[in-house]
């Protein structure tokens, strides 16, 4: 592997790229300048903090710390995903359980199949990818399920009035919401390597890994995205649909 270095000066020069987005937002009156700036600042601060933290944790090689860090990431992802489902009671708890379950299953399979080891330098970046994907999937899932329960209210009530239980009355909405959560993963898998060289692969190649090895890692990443997003979305949908009903199986 070559030691591809990126200097702080080049990184600063590259930051001018963000100005393009800001200029565009300003010209088009998108009113996103502030949000873009905040998001970029957050990226820089959060990533730098994580970078130093990871160096520290990688040095510790302590599985307890690694596990705590995974839980911390899950906690933050759950907080963020729950925002998309405002109005869904216990949205945070549902997100936390769903993301954790998706991550746990995926990591277990990867570890048992010896694709990765439970060592911080492998498990933390992989968990990060898995958790953030699950978070995005849950965000989509929550937004969809909330809007569908609003727009398909009459359909749900008709099914209830025909004597369906709340699960049967919600099946169509649950199915649609899981689909919505999974579609970005499916779409990106379909175009992988054709439209763009995906993140993991690009990173590895930039860092000097051979393309074929980088591809193997990328394929593993795709597999784990599928399992995590589907498990997380499935659990989240089946836990959250109930929150749209009261104990008499009536729509709230």
């Amino acid at each position, binding site marked *: 592997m070559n030691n591809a270095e990126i200097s702080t000066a080049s990184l600063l020069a590259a930051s001018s790229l963000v100005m393009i987005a800001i200029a565009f937002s300003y010209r088009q009156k998108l009113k996103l300048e502030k949000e873009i700036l905040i998001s970029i600042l957050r990226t820089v601060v959060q990533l730098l903090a994580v970078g130093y933290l990871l160096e520290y944790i990688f040095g510790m090689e302590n599985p307890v710390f690694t596990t705590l860090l995974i839980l911390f990431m899950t906690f933050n992802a759950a907080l963020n995903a729950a925002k998309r489902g405002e109005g869904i009671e216990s949205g945070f708890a549902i997100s936390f359980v769903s993301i954790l379950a998706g991550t746990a299953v995926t990591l277990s399979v990867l570890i048992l199949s010896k694709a990765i080891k439970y060592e911080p330098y492998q498990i933390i970046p992989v968990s990060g990818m898995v958790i953030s994907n699950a978070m995005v999937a849950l965000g989509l899932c929550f937004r969809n399920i909330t809007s569908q329960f609003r727009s398909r209210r*009459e*359909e749900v*009530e*008709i*099914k*209830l*009035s*025909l*004597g*369906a*239980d709340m699960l*049967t009355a919600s099946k*169509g909405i649950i199915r649609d919401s899981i689909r919505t959560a999974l579609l970005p993963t499916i779409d990106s898998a379909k175009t992988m390597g054709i439209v763009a060289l995906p993140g993991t692969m690009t990173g590895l190649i930039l860092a000097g890994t051979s393309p074929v090895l980088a591809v193997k890692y990328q394929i593993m990443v795709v597999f784990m995205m599928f399992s995590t997003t589907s498990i997380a979305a499935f659990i989240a949908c089946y836990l959250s649909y109930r929150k749209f009903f*009261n104990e*008499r*199986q*009536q*729509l709230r």
Partner: protein
Amino acid sequence: MKNVSYIKEDKIILKDISLQVEEGDFKTIVGASGSGKSTMLKLFSHLISPTSGEILYRGRDMMSYDPVLLRREISYCVQSGGLFGRTAEDNLAFPYEIRGLEMDREAVAALLSKFGLGQDVLREENRSLSGGEKQRVALARTLLLKPAVVLLDEVTSALDQENTRIVEDVIRQLNDGGTTILWITHSPEQSRRLGSKLLTVENGEIRSLEVLR
């Protein structure tokens, strides 16, 4: 219904309503839009619960029943029909599916024919059905498994005269067979012609209850 009130988002929809519905009754309900008559039917079908007061069904508080089993006895059909799925068959198979049963094609065909519809309608996609056909399929869906109480919310408002007559006949026959009917109608003439009792709702209260026959 005993002293039932229903408040939604600080708005009083129904105020202290008491109403007795006997088994086999045929009550028609009239009232301006927003008077609270649809809310009344939703309360009867247990799609919502009263803010105060209680609704008894066969002498027992509705809240003590399993809501799913209760709604299988008290069926509700809305004005728009509200077909779901892709085809008419998806809708007519639904009452069977939720009970874990196979669709009884003969029973479906017999009921459809009462509504002036052939079996070919089953394969039709919902979007290719006319407004009147949709409404009749929705009514068939409501009545298929013979509920004890049928709640109808302006179900003939989208139908022409002939189809209105067909629907009225089916409902009248059901009532003759002992089914309890509560029917909201927009037409004063229809409400007097059909029911045995006429209930007038105004501003969330019962203004009158006339015995017609």
